[in-house]
Every structure is written in structure tokens, then in C-alpha cells.
């Protein structure tokens, strides 16, 4: 589970003016090239880890949610993705073998791949892990001029979201997206609209998806032990019958001989 000091972000669509500062600050921090003339037209890709797009009558950010129990990290066979105690889900690129199971597993469709490259890597937001380590905010939160992206301890952000609900009755659909979804995420989203109207996946259970796998993986030792005993037993019985038959056959033959 998330520890209380894990850092996170609170995204608030009702405060977003679509200036694009977060998206450009992200590119600056990650040294990513410009991908379109209008920042608001950008889509998440191996060259864009954070977007702000107009979705209907709102501006909506998309980025890695930094799940408390990340599907991507659970899926990765080589532990190239890791949830750190500080909050970020980081990527150890030297481990990656490029199976792309993380991309399949992520419920938010976040990890992107460098399809064009000959030694491709998975690319996604890392919640500015290096800046956090220095005590700085994420690049996007540093650049945001309205508080539509707020940085802080996840607990404090939940409190902040509730305070905003209380202070502005009617302004929000009072639900903190990411508080329970997929077992909780470090990036939280509040809005006046439903998640599906913002292009976010709806109907996410509060059970972290990795638990669905672990439940099965957990019984493997039992299967192996039961199976080994069972198969060994069957082998012993089936083949012993032969031995007995053979012995008896031999016995019969010898008695007949006398």
C-alpha cells in the first residue's frame, strides 16, 4: 500500500486553462523533441509523456498514474519497472527485454514504445523521480500557474481535494479518481465530469489487477507439490503392478518347472 509520505499529484480539470505549461515543462525536463505545432494536439507517445488536450468542453491531462500496485511492474518479467517508496514508478532500462507486456497490462494505456528504433525502450512519465529526490516538485506541477496540477504528499492531496469539494459546493462531481481505482494511484484526478467523459477508463475495480494474477501464482507451489506426489504415486502404482505381475509370472513358471 501507499505509504503516507509517498508523493503524488492532484489534477483538477476545473482549474485547468489549457495553457500547456505542464506538457512543455515535461518535455523540457525529459529532453524530448517537439512533436506538434500545437501543444494541445499532442498525444502520449515515446516522445511525449504528459499531455493536456481539449476533451469536449474541458482541458484534461494524461500521464502515468503511478499506481500503488502497478500492473506494469507486476507484469514485467525482469522487474524493469518498480514502484518506489517515494511514489514514482520508475523504469530500469538496462533490464528491459522489450516484451511489451507492461503495455498490455497497464489499465490506463500509458507505457509507449520506441517502435522506430533498433534498440527500442519503453517510455513513460517517471514522476520526475530525480527532482523529487532533490526535494523539488515535478516539472509539470512547477509550471502549472493555476493549481490544476498540485504536487504533494498523497495524503495531503486527498485532504486538499476534499477541501476543494467542501469549499466549492456544486463545482465538482465529488469523487477522487485514483483514490480507490486499481487499488489507488499516486496521481489523483478530480473534475465535474465522469472519468469516461474525460477519456479516462471507467469501471475500474478497487482490487489492484496484479492481485488477480498473484492469486493464481500463489497456488503454484501447491500445484507442483500435489502434482508431483500424485504423478509419482500413479507412476509407482502403475509400474509396480508390472513388477508384481512379472514376479508372479516368474513364480508360476518356476513352480511349474518343478
Amino acid at each position, binding site marked *: 500500500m501507499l505509504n503516507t509520505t509517498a508523493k503524488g499529484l492532484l489534477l483538477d480539470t476545473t482549474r485547468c486553462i489549457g495553457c500547456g505549461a505542464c506538457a512543455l515543462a515535461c518535455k523540457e525536463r525529459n529532453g524530448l523533441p517537439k512533436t506538434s505545432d500545437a501543444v494541445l494536439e499532442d498525444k502520449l507517445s515515446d516522445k511525449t509523456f504528459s499531455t493536456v488536450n481539449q476533451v469536449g468542453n474541458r482541458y484534461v491531462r494524461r500521464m502515468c498514474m503511478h499506481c500503488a500496485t502497478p500492473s506494469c511492474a507486476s*507484469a514485467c518479467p525482469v522487474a524493469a519497472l518498480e514502484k518506489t517508496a517515494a511514489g514514482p514508478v520508475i523504469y530500469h532500462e538496462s533490464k528491459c527485454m522489450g516484451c511489451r507486456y507492461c503495455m*498490455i497490462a497497464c489499465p490506463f494505456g500509458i507505457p509507449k514504445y520506441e517502435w*522506430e528504433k533498433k534498440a527500442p525502450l519503453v517510455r513513460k512519465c517517471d514522476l520526475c523521480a530525480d527532482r523529487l529526490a532533490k526535494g523539488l516538485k515535478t516539472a509539470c506541477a512547477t509550471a502549472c500557474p493555476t493549481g490544476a496540477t498540485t504536487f504533494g504528499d498523497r495524503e495531503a492531496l486527498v485532504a486538499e481535494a476534499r477541501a476543494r469539494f467542501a469549499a466549492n459546493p456544486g463545482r465538482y462531481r465529488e469523487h477522487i479518481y485514483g483514490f480507490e481505482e486499481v487499488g489507488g494511484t499516486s496521481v489523483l484526478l478530480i473534475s465535474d465530469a465522469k472519468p469516461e467523459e474525460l477519456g479516462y477508463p471507467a469501471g475500474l475495480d478497487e482490487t489492484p489487477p496484479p492481485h488477480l494474477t498473484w492469486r493464481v501464482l500463489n497456488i*503454484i507451489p501447491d500445484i507442483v507439490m500435489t502434482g508431483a506426489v500424485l504423478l509419482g504415486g500413479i507412476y509407482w502404482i502403475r509400474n509396480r503392478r508390472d513388477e508384481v505381475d512379472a514376479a508372479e509370472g516368474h513364480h508360476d513358471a518356476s513352480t511349474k518347472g518343478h
Partner: protein
Amino acid sequence: MPKLALPRLTFWRGVLLAILAAGTYATFLRVFKGLAGSTNLTDAFPWGLWIGFDILCGVALAAGGFTISATVYIFNLEKFRPIVRPAILTAFLGYVLVVVALLFDLGRPWNVWHPLVMWNPHSVMFEVGWCVTLYTTVLALEFSPVVFERFKMTKTLHVLHVIMPILVVLGVLLSTLHQSSLGSFYLIVPTKLHALWYSPLLPVYFFLTALTLGCAMTIVESFLSNRAFGKELDMELLVPLGRVALLILGVTAVIRFADFRHRGILGLPFAPTYESRLFLAEMIIGVLAPAVLLALPKVRQHRTGLFLSALLIVMGVVMNRLNVSITGMERSSGEIYVPAFTEIAITLSVVGVGFLVFALAVKYLPVFPEHEMKDARPPVAPDALHVAAQPIRSLPMPAIAVVALAFVAAGALGADGVRRREVVPGPPAPAGTPALAAALASFEAPAERTFPQAPDSPGPVSFRHASHVDASAPDCLSCHGNSYSFLGRTQAPPAGLMHDTKHCGGCHDGTSAFSVEDDCAACHKSE
């Protein structure tokens, strides 16, 4: 010793050559143009034909190895012994080819060994990686007596004979684990895989279908071996396999029915969607038709009838794996995936190489021990008089009707399904342009910034966002999009250069804003 002669170019050899030529070209593209230049994979659809067919089907199709070796060595059903070798050889080749195909699919194939040293026990793929590695080793050992026999190495043979039961138990366990785990791959995506295929029972389904397939593949291989090499197995062995396949088909169908009922989706297969049509096609080809055929004793005991039933099962499992990995994942991805020419060429080549190596092994190794074979003949093209297959028309009419109906129904459903294939966008977002009044109320211009002072400067300069930004329509990117950092990473302009066009002078030129040459005190605070 076989005579050295150029092989004759028959039709199938020609096909194989064409496939391998296309595969070579595709390999060239994969190596030099990367995944983008050789596949239709995208960020939204990162797993395609190579995972869906080469890996998921490849492993399942190799299930004959563990089913048969368990039957013979563990259940001690000696009469099946003649099939052990071909079954193990096919399995071994299958796994080697799966690994080869995986190398094509991995973005960084040179790191394929990483799961063996960089552990993540929470990952199904980590578990599968280990199982497949170990099982391929076990298969190699299980098959090795054939090679040692060829070279008459009796001591080694003896050791292998002693440890064989352990190897077999190990092989069965490893197979059970990874066959089912291929289904567990998808347990983590309850919101992405279509409900027709997503089920908490995915691993159970994958295991049971692999078992059925183990029986079916043995029948199919035996039939094809007869056609190709004139070597064939006794119907007495194959008919019970058909019966076992029927039994497991039934069990799986009952479990699936209960599962669907439990999840309240009994009606879903009949919804007018792409997925439902392909699901029904899968059920008809892979479950219904073979079950009906195998239930008829006259068909079961008929060479061609048995072969057809087994072939349907094989096709059904292939459809199932492709439905899980492609059909079922499309809607949530918001994209339609069609494999590229290169993806198909590699896949066909992998299959072709499999056939080729199998044929060579049968020719040069004692895979089908002659004295144990019925109808064993020298490997010549089957002549008209001695084709073991019974003609289809000798099958009972209802059986022919079932096969024909199954293909027509599945074809029609498939065609109708593909016609309905579409990307369904999520619910529409409320229309209109963003109303920014409320959001702008929380706009807060960043703090002041004081720049270093040059020796000849009349006083220090502070930059105030407040006086540069229109708080009713802030346009951050007009400055930050170009020369100015968001993160304060760019250095403050060197003292003395503030007036140039790259800095304040860029706008303060007397046209856009008052000129830097105008009133010094406007910016430089004295004292």
C-alpha cells in the same frame, strides 16, 4: 545410406521454398527496419500475430509431448509407446521454434535471458519464461535417447533410462504450469479483454484446451506422417485418444457454461457484435462439430473421420488463442489490427521450418521405430493403391453434413463478424468550448525574479510575471515555448546582454512594447 541426389521439386517443396524466401526477406526487414518497419504493431496494440499465433498457439500445439509421455511413462499404457518419440520430437521442435519466434517479437532480443537472472516472481511471464526454458531442456533429454541410439552410446542410454520417470514427471508439471499460465497472462487485464474471453478461469481453459489439443495433434501428426513418410500408427491407439479428447471437450464446455452463467453473460455470445460472431465461430469449429463427430463411433473409428475431428479441434484452439490475443483486445485498444505481410511471412516460415526439421529427423533418426510400426513402408510419395486414408465419401452422411455445416456456419459468422468490426469510441465528451472563468480565478502568476546586475547598469532588474501576463488570458507559451525555461534551468542572461533581441530587447523594441532604450528607471530600480 540414403543416396545423395537433388531432391525433386514437388508442389509442397515449392510452396515451402516460396515461404522461406518471403521469410528471409521479412527477417531482413525486421533486423534492419526495426519493429516499425516490419510489423503493424502500435502503442495501442503492442501484441500481434507473433504473440497470438507463434507463441500462444505454438506452445499449445506442442502439448502432445507431455500428454503422450505422461500416458506412456506415468500411466504405463505401453501400447502408446510408439507415439512417444514423434510426440516428443514435435514438442521439442515446437518449443525451439517458439523461442525463435519470440526473438523476432522482442524489442531487445539480445536480452532474452534476462528473466533467468533478473527475477520478478510476481510476473506470469517470468514464470512462463522459466517453465519453457526448463521444459525445453527436459524435452531435449527425453528425446536424446533417439540420438544416442543412432550412435550406439549404451552407457548414456542406461542413465537416461533410469532418470526418465523423473524427467517425465517434471515435464508434465512444467507443462501444466506454463500451458495454464499462458492464459494467466491475461488475468491482469479485466478491463481490456472482452468478457467473452476474460474469465478468472482463463488458466483452467488454457490448460484444458491444451490437453484436448495434445490428443488432437497426435492424431493429426500421425495421419500426416502416413501421408508424407508412409509411416503410421495403429488406429487402436488413435481411437482412444479421440475418446479422451471428446471427454475433455465435454468437461471444458460444461465448465464454460457454468462460468458464463455465473457471470451472467449467457446471452452475450448472441449479441450482434464482431466479438460474439467470432466467439460462436470458435465454439462451432473447436467444440460443437468435433464433439458431435467424435461422439459417433462410426466416425471415430474411421481414419479420415478421426483426422477431420482432430483437425477441427486444432483449428478451434488456434481460433481461441487468436481470439483471446487479438479479437478480444481490439475494442479496448480502440484500434483495428491486421498483421503486416512480414508478420505473416515470419509466422509461415516458422511453421515451414518446423515441418522441414521434423521431416529430416524422421529420415535420419529412429523416430518411428520400424518394428513397432504398422503399415511401415519406405518413405516414398504415397501411391494411389496404398493410401491409408479412407476416402471421405465412405464417412456416414451425417458426419459429412456436420463438417460441411460447421465450416459454412463458422465462415458465415466470421464474415458477418468482420463486417461488424469497428472501433467504438467511448461516450462523447460534453460539447462546447471550455468555460475558463472559474479556472482563471485560480490563476496565480509566478513570483518575481531578480537578475544579476552588470557593472555599468543603472540598477538591478526584477522580472514580474504580474505585469507581463494578462491574467484574463494567460499565454505562458508565448515566452516559455521558445527561449525561456519553465524549470529555471536556463541561466539568467549574462549581465550586459539583457537589452539584446534574445532577451528583454526581443519584445521591448519600441513597437511591441516600450523600448529598452527609453526610460531606464522603468525597469532598473536605483539604489
